[in-house]
């Protein structure tokens, strides 16, 4: 059965709403688009040349005028080329998503209806209720990736959202989780454990294979690195306090944060209030290559997050040979075995972070080398792109086999 399905090319729409999506999504798109899987991308954003004939981008314009023309074109296409879909849509109009702007709604859904995929792979759980009509009207299979705030904390704070999840989650064909922890969170909202497939994040091996930290010298001041956007979930208020406390104890540290957004007011305030201007550097690097070079130049990678699925930057650091310290939040405990391939501290606990930082700073070459080797072995074994690619292809095939 699976073999039969494989013979036919599966069409997957990977939907995040924005083009390009996050590093994880972009890696996923490039990885799964092969001879047997065609990937469609819908959303607003930039024109990207993926240089892969198995990837097709359908971009929605943002300008009001262009959007109106786009809708007329899409409606005509639907009427002339796919009239049966239009009839279905009219018959089951009550399933069409509600939206404050009809223009926005039509510009979003029409290209998807015109280029209907076999599987609609949703990247953000909050958009699940919006897109569920594809299953209800056209029988498109739905896969939901469990990622970020949408599963980690939004439903805790928003009871209505939790209620929606409880309604939709049991009806999803399959779910993908980057860690067991995040998968178990979906089960709180009625997701079927047997329909959750754990597939770790993967690396862009073609790119990262050229980067390796061979230098063993530890810098003074100690070079600590974090890669992550400025958002409270990243826990910078805890890492900055720990660094402040260590600097007060005359332990020199240079803390670099690489982020793709501007520092938040909270971050700027903490820097000013703790007088860390001379100890903290914020970089906005445009390419992944530059990030990898910075990892090579650093002594240790730190993830102070309050909640994480599995941090891509941690996997990259481990692969490059940079020792990692992470909070024990979310899926990080599944990547890092404390003292074996990296280090964990208690989430939100500044004293615990200080202790771990001191321990890592004082590792001798042998101990540091053992940690790095073990980390690289772990990444090669579990985060290998070939393995992850097969896992995703299996997920798509299993989903195609689900009877509606």
């Amino acid at each position, binding site marked *: 059965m699976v073999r039969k399905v494989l013979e036919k090319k599966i069409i997957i729409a990977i939907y995040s709403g924005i083009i390009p999506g996050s590093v994880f999504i972009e890696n996923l798109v490039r990885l799964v688009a092969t001879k047997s899987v065609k990937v469609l991308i819908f959303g607003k954003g930039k024109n990207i040349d993926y240089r892969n004939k198995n990837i097709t981008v359908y971009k929605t314009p943002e300008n009001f005028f262009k959007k109106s023309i786009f809708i007329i074109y899409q409606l005509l296409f639907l009427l002339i080329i796919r009239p049966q879909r239009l009839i279905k849509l009219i018959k089951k109009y009550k399933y069409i998503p509600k939206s404050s702007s009809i223009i926005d709604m039509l510009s979003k859904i029409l290209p998807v209806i015109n280029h209907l995929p076999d599987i609609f792979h949703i990247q953000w759980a909050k958009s699940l209720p919006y897109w569920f009509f594809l299953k209800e009207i056209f029988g498109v299979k739905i896969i939901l990736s469990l990622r970020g705030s949408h599963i*980690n*904390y*939004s439903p*805790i*704070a*928003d009871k209505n959202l939790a209620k929606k999840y409880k309604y939709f989650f049991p009806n999803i064909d399959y779910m993908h989780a980057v860690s067991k922890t995040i998968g178990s969170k979906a089960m709180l909202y009625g997701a079927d454990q047997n329909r959750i497939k754990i597939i770790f994040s993967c690396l862009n091996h073609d790119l990262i294979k050229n980067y390796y930290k061979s230098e063993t010298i530890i810098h003074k001041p100690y070079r600590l690195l974090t890669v992550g956007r400025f958002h409270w979930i990243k826990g910078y*208020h805890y890492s900055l306090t720990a660094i402040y406390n260590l600097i007060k104890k005359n332990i020199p540290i240079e803390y670099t944060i690489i982020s793709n957004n501007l520092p938040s007011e909270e971050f700027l*305030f903490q820097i*000013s209030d703790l007088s860390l201007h001379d100890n903290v550097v914020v970089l906005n690097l445009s390419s992944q290559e530059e990030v990898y070079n910075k990892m090579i130049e650093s002594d240790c990678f730190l993830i102070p997050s309050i909640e994480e699925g599995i941090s891509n930057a941690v996997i990259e650091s481990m692969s490059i040979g940079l020792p990692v310290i992470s909070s024990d939040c979310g899926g990080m405990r599944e990547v890092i075995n404390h003292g074996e391939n990296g280090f964990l501290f208690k989430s*939100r606990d500044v004293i615990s972070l200080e202790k771990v930082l001191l321990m890592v700073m004082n590792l001798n070459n042998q101990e540091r080398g053992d940690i790095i080797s073990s980390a690289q072995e772990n990444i090669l074994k579990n985060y290998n792109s070939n393995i992850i690619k097969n896992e995703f292809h299996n997920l798509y095939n299993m989903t195609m086999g689900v009877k509606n």
Partner: protein
Amino acid sequence: MKIGLILNRPPSKSETFLISKIKGLQKNGHEIIIFANKNCDFQLCKVVAMPVVNRFIPIQIIKMFYQYILLIIKIPFVTIKFLKLEKIDGKSFRKRWENLYLNAKILKYKIDWVHFGFATTTIRKENIAKAINAKMSISIRGYDIFIYPLKNPNCYNTLWEKIDKVHSISNCLLKKAKEYGLDDTIKQSIIYPAVDTSIFFRKKGEKQLINSKDSIELLTVARLHWIKGLEYVLQAIKYLNSEKFNYTIVGDGIEYERLALAIDQLNLTNNVQMVGYVPHSKILSYYKEADMYIQYSLEEGFCNTVLEAQSMGILTVVSDASGLKESVNNHVTGWIVPKRDPILLSEKIKEIVSLNHKELDKIRNNAVKRIRKKFSLESQEYQFNKFFNEDLF
């Protein structure tokens, strides 16, 4: 005297500092006109809505030309003077005319004082006062001084050159403003916020022995915002490791999710309630239930709720944020704990609970007395009247 008060929006009922300030000035015979970006149902005085920018450019252009024609017909000299002052400040042609449109409503009024309720509201309005021959003053508040300049360095450089007088709600704010260029040639005045002690007062014998109670009620009234340090309080509650403590947060704000996650992760759902926005008139019932008030902010210009809590004889614990050190006298009217340290905060709470009734009552009485003496509405009224009167020509 006619005072034009410039705000982002008319004060809500809960903004006691502004409400009591307006009432006090009116009581002393001043006429107050509020100029705000939004109009709303505000009864205390006249509110003039500032021009808004329409997102459709042709409509906006028509609106601008209409305002310009009105200005040139009604107040040609003021209009020319305003544009000249803007030019002297080096503003571009486009900026000058944009600012003329944005300030058109105020320029039409004859006012003695143009008073900005926040320093940030002065941006693009620096030349209004001089153009209409009025005095210019500002009130500096926590966000103005502690946060805004971090993202906008040198944002107040032009302001300090134009201003006649500065009002600060605390010493620490004034000190910080000086780091951003405020110099002593500009007249400065510290007028603390005030508490209506006829509403926020302590009934004798109302408080029970805290250490003999089955449940100890902790309270914070604050916006749900990182600067309020609520995450650290939640951690402190966790460190208390006792079902005996019940913590209520009154207020809403942008960081509800952040706190909801912290409550969930720290397993505090049975001990912590976030009750959301409560109108100021109904807050009293929360104070009445509270045994201890906690304000563990990372920074505060001052803090009205800390005054209200002390006025009601609630045991008050605050962080060592600048303004809070002026709101509470450590070990006399309450307790001050270094910020960002939830372990220390939890230890302090435990220590307070272990104190005997006599010691706690002494602190409560001291707090009530200090509030009545230093933060009364009468004193605020007198000082604001003096603020505007003594410097008028």
